[in-house]
Structures are given as C-alpha cells and as structure tokens.
C-alpha cells in the first residue's frame, strides 16, 4: 500500500515522550509486541512520525527498517497527522454500491485536499476507509466520533459547515 509521508514538522512534548518510554519499558521484553507498542505510540501522537519510529526501534532493540517496514505495511499506521476533524468515508461494498464514492469526491472538492491528506492548518483530514460494518446505514461517513448515514451528495456542504470552527 502506498502511503503519504507528512511534510509537516514533528512537534512532540516531553510528556508524550515520557509516556512512550513507559510503554516501551513495559513491553520491550517481548519483541512480538512491536505492533502493540506502535499502536500505543500512535494513540499518543496521533500518527507515527519518523522520530517516534526511531525511539521505538532503539527502545525495543529492533532494527529501524523493520519498524518502518511494519508501519508502512499496515493501513492503520499513519505517517501523516490527522486534522482536528478527521473525516472518514466508507468505501466498503455496500456503501460503494449506494454511492459513497460520489460523497467522497464531493468532500474532497469542498475542502480541497485528496484522501490521505491533512489541510495545512490541521483542521480537516480525510480518508477513505474500509467497511465499518454499519452497512444498514449505507452510505456512511464519520467525522471524529459522529456517524452520518444514508448520505446524499447535497447534504455534504451543510454537514461540513458544522465543523468549520
């Protein structure tokens, strides 16, 4: 899978680093827990910047190329940050046949970025996601924890307006 790598500079706080170190210390005895540590790191930073992957590699005593290999292999690991509002449009089969691609295109057109990207002000990010299993509500999108179902293209601008600030 091709991944977009962020050009936005890394900015982590000492607290975040302390929490990551704690998690590494708890899990470094078992190298098979690498993915678990990376998942936790992503919870802390919101994504996996290169600098964080270096810390994990050093802490777990695992080669950096392996950490990078894992982070680029799995769809869940993000190498770009998420916006304040992350929009995720389901492109699972049920949603797709009910027109979710048109919904996604419309959103991209309105906020001016492509799927997998984040706006420079880090306000919106957008992604196409796999089936979230709410097929009864197709087509579905989520904005952070809010779920919008049975969408039509002309609802999009109104919904996005609610998240403008």
């Amino acid at each position, binding site marked *: *899978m091709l991944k977009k790598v962020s050009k936005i500079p890394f900015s982590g706080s000492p607290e975040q680093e302390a929490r990551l170190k704690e998690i590494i210390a708890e899990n470094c005895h078992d*190298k*098979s*827990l*690498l*993915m*678990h540590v*990376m*998942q936790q790191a992503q919870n802390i930073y919101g994504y996996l910047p290169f600098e964080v992957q270096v810390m994990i590699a050093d802490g777990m005593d695992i080669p950096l190329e*392996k950490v990078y*290999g*894992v982070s680029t*292999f*799995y*769809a*869940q*690991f993000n190498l770009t940050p998420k916006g304040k509002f992350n929009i995720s449009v389901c*492109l*699972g*089969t*049920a949603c*797709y*046949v*009910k027109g979710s691609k*048109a919904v996604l295109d419309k959103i991209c057109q309105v906020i001016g970025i492509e799927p997998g990207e984040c706006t420079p002000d880090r306000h919106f990010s957008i992604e196409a996601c*796999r*089936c*979230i*299993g*709410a*097929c*009864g*509500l*197709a087509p*579905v999108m989520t904005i952070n924890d809010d*779920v919008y*179902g049975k969408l039509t*293209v*002309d609802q999009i601008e109104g919904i996005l307006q609610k998240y403008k600030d």
Partner: protein
Amino acid sequence: MYRAHVLVCGGTGCTSSNSKKIIDAIEDEIAEKGLADEIKVIQTGCFGLCALGPIMIVYPEGCFYSQVKVEDIPEIVEEHLLKGRPVKRLLYEETVAPDIIKSLNDTAFYKKQKRIALRNCGVIDPESIEEYIAMDGYQALAKCLTELKPEDVIQIVKDSGLRGRGGGGFPTGLKWSFTAKNEADQKYVVCNADEGDPGAFMDRSVLEGDPHCIVEAMTICGYATGATQGYVYVRAEYPIAVKRLSMAIEQAKQAGLLGKNIFNSGFDFDLHIRLGAGAFVCGEETALMTSIEGNRGEPRPRPPYPAVKGLFGKPTTENNVETFSNIPQIILHGAESFASMGTERSKGTKVFALGGKIKNTGLVEIPMGTTLREIIEEIGGGIPNGKKFKAAQTGGPSGGCIPASLIDTEIDYDNLTAIGCMMGSGGLIVMDEDTCMVDIAKFFLDFTVDESCGKCSPCRIGTKRMLELLNKITDGSATMDDLDKLEELAYHVKENSLCGLGQTAPNPVLATLKFFRDEYIAHIVDKKCPAGVCKSLLKYVILEDKCKGCTVCARNCPVGAISGTVKKPHVIDTKKCIKCGACIEKCKFNAIIKK
C-alpha cells in the same frame, strides 16, 4: 425478580444509530418513574435486523420496537412499562396484527432462520458471565474436561461435519486432529477475527454479542489439540468487540474457567488478544500468524502447514470466529444433532451479512441448503424501489457472483464452488439492475491491488495489470483482444500466487465474465455501460419533448456545457460536459437522462 426486561441492541450498527443514548434515556426515565427495581435494562449483542436499528425488545411480551428515537422513550416508558399498553406506532410493522402482537419468530425475517452461532446474540448481556452460564455456558467445556478424552472431543467435531466458516470450508475436526498428533513442548490455538471482507460483519457480531462462547470454544480446542496458549487476532476497527472480549477473558480467569488447572482437571489454558492494524492479507492463516509475531503480515508458503509449524514455529490450530462459535453447541447436543441440519456435505448453519440493494440489511443465520431466493425474497424482504434483482456477490474480493438465473441455488460449500462462486466468510451483497458488473469487478480488484502484500509477483504485478485492463474497458479504450488478455492473466494469477489472497483475487473477474460477458462486450464493442454507471461511457442528453426551457440546468452547470434560449429546449455540449450530474439533480421535469 424484575417484572419486565428491556433489551437494547448494543452492536456496532445500532450503536452507530445512537442506541447508547437510548439506554441512558430509558434508565433515566425508569428511575424517575420509580420503576428501577421492577424493570431491568440490558444492553445485548446484535439482533440481526440492522436496517431497522436502533432495536429494542421488551419482555415478557416480546414487543419489538424498531428505529427507536430518544424522543420516543418517555412515551414507551409511560404507556408500555408503566401502563402495560405497547406503543403500536413504534412496533416493527410486521409484528403488528389487528388484535395481537405477533412473535418475532413469525416475521419473514426471522421465520426461516436457525440460530446456532448467533444463539446468544441479542438474548444475553454479553458483558456478564453469569448470563452466559445461565444459557448453558461453559457446560461444554466442563463436559470435555471431566468426561471426555481429547481424542473423543476431536471425534465429536469430526462427526458433526463442521467445516471452516472462514471461507475455505476445510473440515474442522480433521484440522484439529493434525495438530493433536504433532508432539511439541508448546502448541497454540489461534482465533481468526480479522474479518476483512468488505460487507461482512458476522464475526464482529458474535464477539460483540457472545464473547464467552469464543473463550469457551478456544479452551475446548486447546484441550483437544494439546495447546495451552491461545491468541485471538481481532481487527482494531472493532473496538466494542475488543472491549467485550477482554472483559470475557478477565471474567473467565476470575471464575477459574481460564488459567491453571481448569475444573481441577490439571489442564491449563491462557488467552491473549492481539490487535490487527488493517491489512486484509492478515486474514490468511499464515500471514495472520506472522503478524501476531510482530512482523509485516506476509504469508508463508505451505507446507509446512500450521498444524506442523505455525505460530512461533510451533504446531497451531487456527479457526475463525464463526467456526468456534458452533463448538460448544456441538459438544453439548452431540454431533448428530448438528449433522441433522444442512446438506449432505455441508452441515449446520451459516451466518450471512446481508447488504447492498436489499430491504432488510442485517445479519441472518440459515441452515445450509436454504436457497438464495429464500434469503433475498423472504428473509431479506426483496429489492427496494421495485428494481429487479441482478446478482448476489458472496465471498467479497475472493468470491464471485450468483446471477438472477441461479437464484434457486441451494447455498452450501459445494454448490457455490460448482458455479464458480465461493462461500467466503459470509458477506452477501445484493445487486440490482443499476449495478454495473464490470464496475463491481473493478471495485474488488482495486481492493486486492491495494491489499496485495507484494511478496509474490503473480499477485503483486498480475492484479495490477488486470486492474489496468479493467480500467481500459470501463473508459471505453479496450479492444476484444484486451478481454482475452484479461481472462488469460486471471487464470495465471489464480494458479501461481503464493497465498489465498492472490489465488482468489481473480474470482470476481472470472465470475462476472462467466455470467455477464455481454456486459463486458457492451463496454468494449458498443462503448456503452448498460447499467449507466461507468462515467466515461455515459452521455448526458436533454430530452427535447420534456425540456421546458426553464434554464435551471444551464445555470447550475459548473462548466457551462449547457446552452439554449429561455422556454426553448436546451442542449448539452458533450465535449464540455464533465458528467457531474448536477443538471439531473436540479431538473424538475426529468428531462435529462444518462445514456
């Protein structure tokens, strides 16, 4: 004792349509009316009828409320729970007869279903081990550990005829016996809950609605095969399932049903959860094990099979969630009872996630051998908006489609394989006449290209080339020669790929080619998309006799492709038109069509 129980669905579908807030509202309302000691509110797993969510059932009457809103709660509590008068307006219409309220089991959606794997979903509180035990939970484990030898357990599973529900259909008992006969200092049991097929959600529903059942079944498998450690590999996208499974494991440990010396039998078993990270290929058994070990989830060549050399290089039994969920019932009620259901070579039931262009989207469990017609027309309630049924897609990106002409096919492993389709893990997507089969094949291939792990070249390169050919077909630049190439390449990829992902990736193309070749030809020769889906092949046209010349379309066209004078029919300049559809949406006279 409570005089009434209110069951609210807490599965992912209903949670997405706000069932959490409904539970809060009922609890508040009940407390306010002073009924908290008389009425118990329970959050259950999935009832199956997800299209009508959020769903709520009130016992003892068994009243089935659908599409409940928070605003409806005061009325339901006041009228039904306080005064005993069910609110007919909010009941599922199929259960309302003139003078009685029918049982749910008499409705078309539930009548033909037979719930084994889903038996506790929507019935018990999945977060309570007591409720599971009250439904005979952990009795099968007790029977195994205290009365049966490991080989007896395997024999029962063999006799039941249970086959792997993850898609392949390999006999489960046989799989267990392979691991059992391999000696090793450590063996493992792995539960595959990495349900990656788009449109499939039965494994999630079992984990959310009946997590203890998986804990029990895996422990039984551990006993039968001689494993003392188990791993459940769950998609991280299923937070509710992960939470409930973790709770179940914790509760089982506290109750002594997991851990050391279970039932004083000297048998130890421990369970761990590992979260996936969104890679479809990890649903393949060897890739899944590589992922549990903390690596890129790439498959390994077989042999050696996992029963010989699996997780961490040790003998391993891997089954999927739905397969495990049948085990306790088989042990409790015997192999014969399970084998009495289904067809000759496919026993028991199968859960399908019904989706797409169908009225009752949701989860259904049917005996093997039920026809596709029964599933779609009776259980599913038919196709909405009076459209015609065109095909059903099973098995997701690895499967194929069943065309309308074969709607009377009895669903089981062998019948589906015989028509070039496959059972798959159980996604069943219904398509109507507005669905373009070439576009669907392209959609699935796009998915596999994205998910191919890249380890072997037939899959990595082959699927990509196939997608390019499909793109040529849907944008109108393909020749009949390309169609031959596509078919030839499909067979190459199928035969030469390393793992199940690549070996099955061409299936959607081959199946649509088999049943809908004319649609491919229409795209290639006539440069037309019969279903009106493929954008490049469509033309937007204004019907002269219907156009009133109101100018709305011309004003809304983003590229100025529509021209004409007021009150005279307009025309679209097809060279400028970007086929966005804005004009069709705005036209009040249905004067614009795609052709």
